[in-house]
Structure formats: C-alpha cells, structure tokens
C-alpha cells in the first residue's frame, strides 16, 4: 500500500489558512462580517492610510502624506505613485493608481448617482452606520496624485474610519470596463485591488485561492500562493492543522486550547481583542420596549458562568461596551448585576407574566463569541429560574444574517469586533440611529440624547476631552439596557511552528502579506 514510506511528495510553496466560512462578497465596503474582511481587506486591497497599533500613529499606505486644515474640515492626501492594480482574466490595467480611483471608491459609497452606488444587494453598512455620506461634502481631485476630502463638520473619527478595513481603494478603470461590458456586479466578485495578493479562484464551500501580486508596491511578499480552506467546523480546522493540510487555523474553541499542549508543532498566537459579545433586545418590539423587562432580563443572567463554560475563563467579563484594551475604558459600576430576585420583582412591576422569548444564536464561532448556541442554552437556563421561557433559534450564518435583517426577532446573541482603535467604533456603528438604518443596530434602539453625546465626542480631538463623553455613553447603555454586554474575548489563531511573522492585531481582519514559512515541511 501507499504509505509515508515513499518519498514525501514535494508541495508547491504557499500558505493555507483554514477559515471559518464563505465570504459574502469580495468587496469589504459592502459588509461588516469578519469572515469577509479576513478574506478581502488585507489580502486584496489597500487603504489610503493604516493605523499602527504599536506606535498609535497613522501610517501611510496608498497615501504617502496628509495634512488637515486649520478648521478641521479639509483633509489633503498626497497619493503614492507607480502603484499597480492586479490583472485578471477580465482586466489588464493600462495605468497606475491615481486620484480617479480614490474618487471612484468613495463616491461609490456616498453618491447615489454614481453608476455603481446601487450595485450589490447589501449597501454599505459600515459607512451608513457612521453616516459617512452626511459627513463628506465633496471629494476634490487637485491633480493626478492629490485629493482633498471636504467635510461638513469636524469629526475626530474621520481618519480612523479611513484606516478601517472597509475603506479600500477599487480600480476606476476596471469599473468603467465592466460597465461597458454590462456586468458591473462582477466588480465585487472578481475583485481587483492593489493589495499583496490577487484573487485567483473562489469555489464556494471549498476554498479561495490567491496568487502573489508580483508588482506589489509594498514590502516584498514571501508567500507565492495563499489559500483559504473554508472549514466551518472548528474541530475539522484543528485536525487539518495537525495533519498539515493547513498552516494557520482560525477561531479555535477555548476547549481545544488545552489540547494544544500535546501537539509539539502547533503554536498559539493571541492578543486581547478589541471586541465585545452582547445580548441585544429588539427594543422596538413589545415587551422589550419596556425598560423594566430589559433590566429584568439583564439581572437574570449569570455572566460568571458563561465566562467559565463558553470561554473557559479566557475572556474578560464585560461591564460595559468598551473592552479594557481601549484607551477610553474605565472600570465603572454596572447597574445590571446578577440578581434573579430583582429580575422577578422587575417583571412583576412591569405586569409581565408567562413571558416566552426567542433568543437568536449565531451558528458560527466568532472571535467575541466562540459558541453562541452554548451561551444561549446557559441564558435559557438562567431565564427559566425567573419564570421566562426561552426558545433558541439558529440558522446557518448567511441565512442568519439575512433573517436578522427582517427585524422581527426578539433578541439576539451577537457582538462586535472593532475596526479601528477609536472608541467611537464601539458606539456609532452598532447603537446609533444611523446604524438603525444600516441594520447593524441589532437592538433597534435609537436615542437622540445618546447620538448627541457621540456627536460631541467626535468634535473633540484630544483624548482626555473625549473620554468623559464615552463614559457618559457607557452609563446611558447601562441604564437603558438596549444590550447586555457579556464578555471581551481574546483574539486567537493557531499556527504551525514553521510559520513566522504572523501577527494578530487587536482589531480588524487578518493579514498574510508579511507571513513567512521557515521550512516547507518537517513532518515525521
């Protein structure tokens, strides 16, 4: 029989990442799901600027320099020259990246008259949630390599938002070609960017294959071929890593981390993440429009137990939305401590009896919540203690998000991974009134006072001046309970020991541009 006795077949060089699901699109502008961001942002695209979490400074990407006007309303960017876009079977670029591409990429989002604005079925959820089109009055092309963003009002989050994984630069030339060919929707599937890898092939439920972008402007990329092996089952990802079919594997379950010590070839890469797992109530639907009901449910759940069962105590209990790793974090008193008696009393006061609610639980592991269904079961048990019956509802991920968009759910266990280091990113995209329109506001809670606090925070540029506003926002959430923050989890990936230079950033998607492999194979 064939066995490992015959010489080890030589493997083409490359890196395989076991990812957890199918991307929804290949354009990060149109999504907020981390799975899609991982597969697109840092592999296929570049942004104008990057944010370096270590120096806490913005770093150049496609923009080399920038300046902000005195009044804080105009941002001027000098663009990098000699940057090439990918070529594919559909497109061969005839020119370098220039200001037209920047204008196109952002006008697509903010200008309803742009030919591409309505291409794609999801809209631009992140940009809608931060009200981006209201913020920008115009984008001006000064010359080939200089653009100015004119804002309507001051916004300290603007630069942070340009540095998020969503603000990628597309090719205008490609877009024009596709429009002529009558297939504009191809722009989001057969993606063309300036990033370190170009998209070669996507087979749904199976894999995504990338090739190195040979004329990449940035630091040299070692990996010739990058493959995302789509493996929704966490145990399968783990076994693939052990058998060598994967080099890097996403989202291990906390319980698996204890087994890793028995595997000499596997290393854990982790970082305290900027994220929060929460339980959101549909505040527009009775009985959740009643504050006392929300408070009662918040008092009913035992977060300590969730932390030990779901997270194996690898996470931090959340008292508010902001995680300890955020600069605006300060430990504060949580009004909604675990107290079943209080919960019962509150329900009685609200004249709610025989309450039966649905808890929607995500079917897939996310960084912030490795096992939402388990969490839902624990909550179900806690709620039974106060006489509330809970049904757990779960669908496959893509169906789940589509059905959530219909907004007739009772409550949902979900969470948020920060996209940048700006604390505003924890509030505006998921709890503001504009987030309601973009359907990222899972509590469907719209409070003018709350939005006002956030607007104030954006007007300030000094951290110490902004911090009190964020704390006021935290206090408001704690009082109004649109969501119950549960935990802040660590961001963990597993890798083969031959993989070096793989960093897990506290926020945003994964990047393989700098990752290297020491030796191709040292099995046996």
């Amino acid at each position: 029989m064939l066995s490992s006795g015959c010489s080890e077949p030589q493997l083409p060089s490359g890196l395989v990442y076991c990812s957890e699901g199918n991307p929804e699109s290949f354009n990060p502008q149109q999504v907020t799901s981390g799975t899609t961001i991982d597969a697109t942002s840092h592999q296929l695209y570049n942004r104008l600027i990057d944010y370096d979490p270590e120096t806490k400074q913005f770093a150049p990407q496609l923009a080399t320099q920038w300046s902000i006007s005195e009044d804080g309303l105009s941002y001027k960017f000098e663009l990098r020259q000699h940057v090439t876009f990918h070529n594919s079977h559909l497109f061969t670029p005839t020119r370098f990246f220039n200001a037209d591409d920047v204008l196109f990429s952002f006008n697509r989002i903010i200008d309803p008259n742009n030919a591409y604005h309505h291409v794609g079925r999801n809209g631009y959820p992140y940009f809608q949630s931060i009200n981006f089109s209201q913020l920008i009055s115009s984008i001006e092309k000064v010359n080939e390599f200089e653009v100015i963003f004119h804002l309507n009002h001051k916004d300290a989050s603007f630069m942070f938002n340009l540095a998020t994984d969503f603000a990628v630069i597309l090719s205008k030339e490609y877009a024009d070609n596709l429009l002529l060919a009558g297939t504009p929707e191809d722009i989001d599937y057969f993606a063309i960017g300036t990033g370190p890898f170009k998209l070669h092939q996507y087979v749904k439920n199976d894999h995504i294959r990338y090739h190195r972008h040979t004329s990449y402007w940035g630091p040299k990329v070692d990996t010739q071929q990058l493959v995302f092996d789509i493996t929704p089952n966490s145990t399968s990802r783990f076994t693939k890593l052990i058998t060598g079919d994967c080099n890097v594997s996403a989202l291990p379950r906390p319980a698996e981390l204890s087994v890793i010590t028995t595997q000499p070839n596997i290393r854990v890469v982790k970082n305290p993440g900027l994220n929060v797992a929460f339980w959101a109530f549909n505040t527009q639907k009775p009985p959740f429009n009643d504050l006392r009901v929300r408070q009662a449910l918040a008092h009913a759940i035992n977060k300590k137990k969730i932390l030990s069962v779901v997270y194996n105590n690898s996470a931090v209990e959340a008292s508010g939305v902001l995680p300890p790793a955020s600069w605006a974090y300060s430990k504060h008193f949580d009004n909604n401590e675990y107290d079943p008696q209080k919960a019962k009393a509150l329900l009685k006061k609200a004249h709610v009896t025989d309450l039966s609610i649905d808890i929607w639980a995500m079917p897939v592991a996310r960084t912030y919540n490795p096992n939402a269904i388990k969490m839902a079961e624990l909550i179900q048990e806690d709620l039974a203690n106060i006489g509330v019956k809970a049904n757990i509802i779960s669908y496959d991920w893509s169906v789940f998000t589509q059905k959530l968009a219909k907004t007739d759910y009772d409550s949902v266990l979900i969470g948020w991974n920060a996209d940048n280091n700006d604390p505003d990113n924890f509030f505006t995209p998921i709890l503001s009134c504009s987030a309601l329109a973009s359907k990222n506001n899972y509590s469907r809670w719209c409070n003018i006072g709350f939005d006002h606090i956030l607007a104030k925070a954006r007007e300030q540029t000094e951290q110490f001046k902004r911090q009190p506003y964020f704390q006021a926002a935290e206090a408001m959430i704690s009082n109004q309970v649109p969501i119950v923050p549960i935990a802040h989890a660590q961001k963990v990936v597993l890798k083969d020991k031959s993989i070096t230079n793989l960093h897990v950033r506290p926020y945003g998607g994964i990047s393989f541009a700098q990752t290297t492999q020491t030796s191709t194979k040292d099995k046996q």
Partner: protein
Amino acid sequence: MWQYFFRRINLFLATSILLLLVLYIATGLFPVDKSFALSGIATPSTEQQLQINQTYQLQQSAFKQFIAYIQQRLSGDFGVSINSQQAVAGELTRVLPASLELAFVAGLIAIAFGVPLGVFAALTQNVFLQRLILAITLTGYSVPVFWLGLSLLLWFGVNLNWLPTSGQINLLYDIDSVTGVMLIDTLLSAKPYSFAAFQDAVLHLILPAVTLAVLPFTIVTRITRQALTNVMEQSYIRAAEARGLGTSKILFRHGLPNALVPVLKSIGLMLGTFASYGIVVEVIFSWPGVGNWLISGIYQRDYTVIQAGILSVSLLIISLSIFIEMLHTAINPVSRKELYASK
C-alpha cells in the same frame, strides 16, 4: 426478454415521476414564496418575476405547473442557489464527480477484498477461521459508520499523523477541474507537481473510502460465502468433481460465476443505504461531494440546492438499482426461466 426490459423502463419512469411529484409538492410546502423556492432568485426584478411565472406556469393550473416543473428540472435547470445566487446545475456538476469517485473507490475496495474473503470462508474447513470471518463481518456490519469514521480519523489522522483527514487534496496543489474526479484530474494536469498531487489525492482518499467500504465489504463477504456454500453443494458441482476436474477449475468455471449472481442482487439492494452512508462519510471527512453539499444546503435553508441534491441522488439510486436488476436478469438463467414461464 424485451417485454421485460420494457416493463423495467416503465417502472423507472413511474418511480421517477412519483419522486418528482413528491419533490414538487414539498417545494410548495417550503415556508417561502413558491416562485422563490422554485427559482432561488432572491430579489427578482419585475421582468425576472414575469419570466419565473412564465417558466413555471405559476398562473396556470396545478397540473400545468407540475408539467412545467418537470420540464425545467429534466432539462437541467435547477434554478440558482439561494445562498450563492449561482446556477445550481453548475454546483451539482462540480460536486457529483467527487461523490462518484469516492463511491466507486469504496465499492472497488469492498469487492476486491470481500469476494476473495467470502470464497475463502466458504471453502475453508477450519471452523475457527470460519467463525472468525463471520465475527469480523458481523462486527463491521454493526459498527455505526459515524463512529468508525471518527475513530479512524482520530487514530490514523490525529494520533499517528499518517493520513490526511479531510478534503480531496492539499489545496496548495492548484489542479484545474476537468472531469471533477481528482484522481484523474491530477494525472491530466500539466503542472510539474502533477504526480505528487496524484499521490496526495490518493492519500486523502484512503480514510473516507475505507470507512465507506466497510459496510458493502461485510455484505459482499457474507453473501459470497453463503452463495458459494450453496452452489458447492449442488449436484452439478459434485458431477464435476466426479469427472475429476481440479478444485480451482470447478471454483472459477462453475462455482463462482453462479455464486456471484446473488452478490450482484445484494449490491443493488444496498444502494440506498450506501448512499446515506456516503453522505455521513462525506460530512465527517469534509469530502466536497453531493452529500456535503446537500447537508450544508439544508443548514443554509437553500431550497433549490435541497431539491437538486435529493433529485440527483434519488434518480441515481433508482436508475442504478433498476440497471442492476436488469443486469441480474440478463446474466441469471434461473430468473430468465421464471420470466418465460410466467409469460
């Protein structure tokens, strides 16, 4: 004889139409709009909606709708996948060859090992060996396939690290899909590493194929043993012995061909179980075949994929069973005789 074939073909058509009818009624029961469940187009434009109504005759009587449904499905139009918005037929042609590859190799293993072992069990005089073989096959027959699959995965994949445990091939091998059968595609590939890729594909195939082969292997062994024991007691075998023919000649010319007839029949009867085992094995070993595709379609409430998966698997089973039955009649003189007698 021709009349018999004609009757079988009729049976095939009747069963298939019944299957389509059941599927069609079930499609109407899905908790979504009927035109959506049939076409899979999530947000149709007005023209698309008209087109769907026209194609599936949605304004017409139920009978006309059913006829339109059959026409679409049999012409290979399964609509688009609700989840990916890609043509279901395209996805089906991608996953079907992988399943056939797995099933074929598993069947081959089962026959290649099952028939000789059955013959050995029938011929040996050693009672202990007979009992041992019986015990092994009975155990193999009773072991649940999911447990077996997971155990093999754990021993040979995770603990010993001898064999890969999931997928068809290490994805670093960039193999263009020509036939969809990985073993053939790797050899057809012009890449410098095509033979290495072939070896890798074989290694990936071992665990799932062995797991899937266990059930048919035990059945083939037992039926072969039983049938051969019966045949060897027939008077024509004794006559052959009396005429002084050698044991191997008796076995290969007179014994085995007659003993294999019931084996063929049992393979035909086993197809349904084999297919459902195949689905379980595909899911355990992440084999990118119809089973895996169907299960993920069910999880994703992908109604068009569910319909296409069920239809293709069932049609395959129906046609194969009827084919095997016809083959069985064609090569089996006894049932031919019965046929003429009943005429």
